[in-house]
Every structure is written in C-alpha cells, then in structure tokens.
C-alpha cells in the first residue's frame, strides 16, 4: 500500500470569518503525523478539506503527485481517504453491524453476503479491541452502547473501508488509557501496512507517544512542523499558544498549593455509604470541605453513576449524608437546592441549551432567585460577572451558546453552577475535548473553589489530571472501589494503572 498526500497553503473563509489562512500538511505511507492546535486553530477545517467534506477557497491538494479536488466526501473515500470524527456519525437505532457496513455492505459475486457472514466479520473487527471493551453482540443497537464503545465502533467503521489514509480527530477523547493503548497498537500495525495516519488530539502525552512528526496550527495557519525526536512538549505548547503560559504550568502551580489545604482537619461534607445502582456495588467514601477527590479507572466502571446518584439523577440504594444530615433526593432539583452542582460528561446533550443565549444557559438553575417579574438586569449583571471571571470569549451574553468554541462552551456549563456558590461540585470529565488554554482556566477555578471550601468530586479519563490535581483518587473497577490512592503516598501513575485493570489491593505498592 502506498500513498502520499499533501495540502499546500489551503485557505477557507466562512462569510467574514477566516477559518484557515494557510493550512499546510504532508503525510506519506507508514507515517503518523500529529495535528495539534487550540480549539478554533483550523485543525478541523483542514481535516475536512482533505476528506472532501469542505471545499477549499484556495491552495492545493496533491495526492500521489497529482493535484486533486474532492467535490464530495465520497470522492475522497473512493481514493482511500477517510476520517474518524469526534462528533459521532453513527445511527442510534441501527445495530453495530449495520452501522459499520452501512454504504459498503460485504458483497460476494456482487450480491450481499448472508447475515451470518456479516456478523462474523463484525465480530472479527470488534476482536481488535477484545479485553478493553465488554464482549459486544454485533446486533446490539448503537444507542445502547457506552460512549467509549460508540467511539470504538466509529473507528472500526472507518477501518472497515480499508483506507490508505486515516484522520483520527480527537478519537481518543472518550477512551480510557487501556483502550488508547490498544488503538495505538493498531495504529502501529496500520503504519506497517503502509497506511498514512493523521492524529488530531489535545492530549500532549498521546501525541508524543504515537507521532513521528508534529504539525502545529494557530489562528488558521500551520506554524510548525516538528520531528518528534527533536521536539520538546514545552516547545509544541509554546507554538500552539503563541506564549509560554501553558496547561502544565497551571497544573504544577496547582500542585504547589495542594499541600496548603490539608484535609485532615476539615469537616466531612459528603458521606456516601454502601451506594448501589445498576453498575455500582457497595461504594462508600467521604469527601471533606475543600478536598478534591478524584475518581479514576477504566471508562464505564461506575464513576458516572456515583456522580449521578449523589446528584439524585438516577435510582440508587445506600445512604448519603450532607454535613451529617441524611438526604433522600428524588430529583436533581433537590440536590441543586441543597447546594450540589453537576457538570455532565457530554456538554452538548446534557450541559447546554444549544440555540439559547449564553445568558439563559448560565442562569438556567438560578432563575428562582430573581423573583417575579424576573429582574433581568440583575440576572444579566450576575451572568456578565461570571463570564468575566471565567474569561469566556464571546460576542455578548445574548449570543447563542452554540456560537462558542468547545472550551468556552464548557466554561458556560461550569459557570452556571458558580453562580450558585455550590458547596459540593461533581464533575464528569470536564476537560474532555477542551483546548489547553481553557483547561488551564478550569484547573485554576477548581483551585479557587477548594480554597473557598467547596468539596469536589472529579472524574477524569486523563490520568495526568488525576495525578496532578487530586488530593485522593478512588479507582473503580466493575462497580467497586478497587483502591484509594493518597497524594504524597500511594498516588502514583503505576498504582493508578494497576488498580484500573483490577489488580487487588495487595499488589499496589
């Protein structure tokens, strides 16, 4: 398999906005090129131009030495060029097998092969991720899958086309570390097959593990093309942001003040005993005032259920006490009234009102405090203050929230709870698919809330965040707390990974 593809000085404007002013990227067989940049830097536009989703205004695409233009994604696909996108393209009501083979059902002498053969082929594809996802029946509807399994089906769907060129656009955002490892094994295999891979990601650690070269974009321009061996992470981040302040510095700064806030003396804010749900079995833990408790482990081991149960959003058994007072919440409203806040894992389907204004998104949980008729000027003033505190980049509070970039939209989801001064903050992977600048803001904010005494429970699929930010980390496996790792003692990367895969207490050093 041979391919070489390059985009040279490609440009694209949407109305008055220049999305891409100089996109340049070259990839050849057996190469993994990482494409990095903050949200809005033009990565997605460049990817879409290469795969024929978007038509460029200027510049050139050169495939195997010949200039090409793709009028339609099908034209690119016919030449073996495909992409796995972060926004899933699967049809919820169709099965795994139907989704994977949609538009290219397996044929035999020009006729569709029988159902059993299709299912066997699907199982063969799913086997590539055996051990890191549960065994899945190819006839399961996609809507019943967890987000990580959906993402894997999305990857397999692309791979089933036997492409020469694959763009992975934030394809690891929903995956846990074991699943990422497996994907990277597959990518190594694809390299040996002679395929070319473009890996788009916000996770520096992954970029440095897998990429041969790193192409950096900023403000619609390609600003650097670095060979992995000679590049430092700091150099890449500096190119991305155009300045030296970066997320790791923020993490490090936060790490310094964790010692200021010892949890030994603070009161227990949240006490959970023998919590059970569909996925949880007998989960018990305490969270203290001003403590940042992490939840770790592979994806889908019950971390989300803990957050939802405490928030009163799912049926559960067991006992929950807030500051020593037992509570029985039937609806998130009860939890909200008691000063609990929840930042959901999927901001578009669970956190935002897409077409409504930033103002209405920020104030949604808080309208009751503005009386009747609503004192809208007060509501606007408070929301404006929150937007300033969070440095949300926006045209104005009346702009629809879906006009914001991913990082700024996530700040709105968090901001609506800051307006209520929560006493307990529950976060479900809040930095997923967020650019480094916004990540740093979120870390800073968590630090401030801890100083103010807020008890925080924080699930992250990014091990580096758990290691860098948390006072303690509970590692879940199969609905059970497998290990409790404490900062300055047992909280190490190797212990975190060991407990994630279900190693017993005894084996953790």
């Amino acid at each position: 398999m041979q391919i070489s593809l390059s985009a040279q000085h490609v440009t694209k404007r949407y109305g008055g906005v220049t999305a891409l002013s100089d996109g340049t990227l070259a990839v050849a067989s057996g190469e993994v090129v990482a494409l990095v940049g903050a949200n809005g830097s033009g990565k997605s536009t460049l990817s879409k131009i290469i795969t024929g989703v978007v038509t460029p205004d200027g510049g050139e695409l050169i495939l195997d030495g010949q200039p090409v233009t793709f009028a339609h994604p099908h034209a690119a696909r016919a030449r073996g060029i495909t992409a796995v996108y972060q926004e899933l393209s699967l049809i919820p009501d169709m099965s795994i097998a139907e989704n994977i083979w949609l538009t290219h059902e397996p044929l035999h002498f020009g006729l569709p092969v029988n159902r059993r053969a299709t299912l066997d082929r699907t199982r063969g594809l799913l086997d590539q991720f055996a051990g890191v996802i549960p065994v899945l029946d190819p006839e399961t509807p996609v809507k019943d899958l967890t987000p990580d399994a959906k993402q894997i089906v999305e990857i397999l769907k692309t791979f089933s086309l036997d492409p020469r060129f694959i763009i992975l656009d934030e394809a690891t955002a929903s995956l846990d570390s074991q699943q990422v490892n497996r994907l990277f094994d597959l990518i190594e295999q694809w390299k040996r097959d002679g395929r070319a891979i473009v890996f788009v990601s916000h996770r520096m650690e992954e970029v440095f593990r897998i990429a041969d070269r790193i192409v950096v974009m900023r403000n619609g321009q390609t600003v650097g093309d670095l060979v992995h061996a000679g590049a430092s992470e700091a150099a890449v981040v500096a190119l991305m942001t155009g300045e030296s302040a970066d997320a790791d510095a923020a993490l490090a700064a936060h790490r310094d003040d964790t010692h200021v806030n010892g949890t030994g003396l603070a009161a227990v804010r949240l006490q959970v005993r023998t919590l059970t749900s569909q996925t949880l079995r007998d989960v018990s833990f305490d969270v203290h005032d001003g403590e940042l408790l992490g939840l770790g482990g592979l994806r889908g081991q019950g971390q989300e259920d803990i957050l939802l149960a405490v928030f009163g959003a799912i049926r559960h058994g067991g006992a929950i006490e807030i500051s020593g007072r037992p509570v029985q919440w039937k609806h998130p409203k009860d939890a909200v009234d008691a000063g609990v806040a929840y930042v959901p894992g999927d901001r578009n389907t669970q956190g935002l009102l897409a077409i409504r204004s930033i103002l209405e998104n920020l104030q949604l949980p808080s309208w009751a405090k503005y009386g009747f008729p609503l004192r809208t000027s007060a509501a606007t003033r408070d929301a404006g203050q929150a937007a300033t505190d969070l440095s949300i980049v926006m045209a104005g509070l009346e702009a629809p929230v879906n006009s914001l970039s991913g990082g700024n939209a996530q700040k709105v989801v968090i901001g609506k709870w800051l307006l209520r001064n929560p006493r307990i903050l529950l976060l479900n992977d809040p930095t997923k698919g967020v650019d480094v600048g916004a990540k740093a803001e979120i870390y800073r904010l968590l630090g401030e809330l801890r100083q103010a005494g807020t008890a925080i429970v924080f699930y992250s699929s990014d091990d580096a965040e758990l290691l860098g930010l948390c006072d303690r980390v509970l590692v879940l496996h199969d609905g059970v707390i497998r290990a409790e790792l404490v900062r300055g003692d047992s909280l190490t990367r190797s212990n975190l990974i060991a407990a994630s895969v279900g190693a017993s207490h005894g084996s953790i050093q």
Partner: protein
Amino acid sequence: MIALLLAVVLFFLGGLLQPGFVSVAQAINIIRLAAFLGIIAAGQTLVIISGHEGIDLSVGAVVTLSAILVFRIVNGNNGMVIPALAVALAAGALIGLANGIGVMALGIPPLVMTLGMTGIVQGTILVVTQGQMIGKAAPIMGEAISQPLLGPLPGIVVIWLLVGTLMWMLLERTGYGKRLFAVGVNRETARLSGVRVPVVVVLTYMASGVLSAFGGFILLGFTQNVFLNLGTPYLFPSVAAVVIGGTVLAGGKGSYWGTMAGALVLTLLTSLLTASQLPEATRQIVLGVLLLALLSVYGRQRALRQ
C-alpha cells in the same frame, strides 16, 4: 418581525387589488377577526415551544366546549358571566391536565394524545347536549367585545393586546417561561440543571387548555350562538399562525408577538381571497399554496441562520 412586515405588505397589497381596502375601519376589522385566532393560538405557542413534537390538537374542541358551557350557564344573565367563565376555564385546565399527564406520565405522543382528547370532548358534548344547544349569550359579552373601548379600538382588540402583554411577561419575565424554553431545547440539560421537566410540560398543556377555553368565551361573545363545530375551523390555523410567527416546530424558540403577527397574516390572506370573488374551491387551493410557500420560506430562513 418578518411576519409583521408581511402583514403590512399584504394589507397594502389588498388596497391595490380592492379599492377601498386600505382604511382605518378595515384595519380594525382585520385585527378584530385575527384576535380570535390569536387568542386561541396563544396556548398552541406554549405547547409548540415545549418541544418533543409538542402540539395541541384539542384546542378546537376546547373552544367549542367552553362556548357551550358559558352559553348554558349564563343563559342570557349578565350576572352569571364571571362564574360561567370560571367554570369554562376550569374545564380547559382539566382537559389540559389530562393531555399533560397522558404525554408525560403515559408517554403518549402529543399528536395522538390531543387528537384522542378532541374525540373524547366532542363525543361528550354530543352525549350530554343531544345536539340541542340550550341557553343564551349574555348581552354584556357582546358589548364588551364589539363596542369601542379605547378610542376606536373595540374591546376584543384591547383584550388581545392584554393577552399579548401577559404572554410576553409569561415567556420572558417568569421562571416558568425560561424553563419552558429550556425544556423545549434539551430536556436532559434541563433536568440536570434542576428543572422538573414533567411539571413544566403538564403546566404548559394546562395553560393551553385555559387559553383555548378563554378563546371560546370570547368567540361566543362575537357569534352570540353556539354549534358543534364552532372551534374546529381554528385548529389548523392556530398551528399555522405559530409557525408563520417564527416559532420553531421542534421547540425551544419562539415568541407570542410572532404568533400575533402570524394570526394577522392568515386573517388578511383569508379576507383578501374572500374579497377576490374567486369560487370557493379555487380560494381553498390558493390559500393552501400560499401557506405552503410561506412555511417553506420560513424553513429555509432558519437553515440559513444556523
């Protein structure tokens, strides 16, 4: 805004086609006719904003029921108007409550639930009245609606402006209104932000029932008489007025000012066609084609904006 502009353009277009159409008296007449549709479409606006295929097809039946109840209870007696109105509004609220519970608790699609409710209400009316309409509208009702109240404006127009102001307050200046938009856009986001979604939806269907019942009361003041299909002709225009007014059928976005303009546009179209002396069948066809054209233009505009 666009719908209002369209109404003004249509009005002056009427002047070109029909000498003498453009006059203050004619304008007031059109607004008066549009008011009935506008008030009945108020509840429809709320239900459509609530999203999830929200639609209230029982508005016509509730209008009829309310008019019949008032007709019977008042029986020509001015003193009975307020109690009769209270009974009619309560009946509307009850029907809305049943719709809301059917949609939220039993998970019946709104279209099916409210269509079924239409059948139940109409059937009940038939069984109870045996087709005999006994009673009489009170004189004060006709006067309050038809006589000039504010300058040249008749009572009905003043009432409509009042309804419009209250609807604006409800949507833009109450917690309920803000939650209704949220529920219309994304129910999971609303729930996880502490909004009790079923309560908001049930209240919305109740509000629709109450507003339709009020529409029936007003309509009786105008017609002075009741019959079995009194409210039926207002059902589909009530949906069309909402959509022409820019409220998104998928929910979560819209305004009552838009619906008012939509009611004006529809009433103007009908009046122009009536004045055109075309045969009835041709008028129906032309109206249908114009509505299709209007609605598809609105659909396209939204696509461009997003």
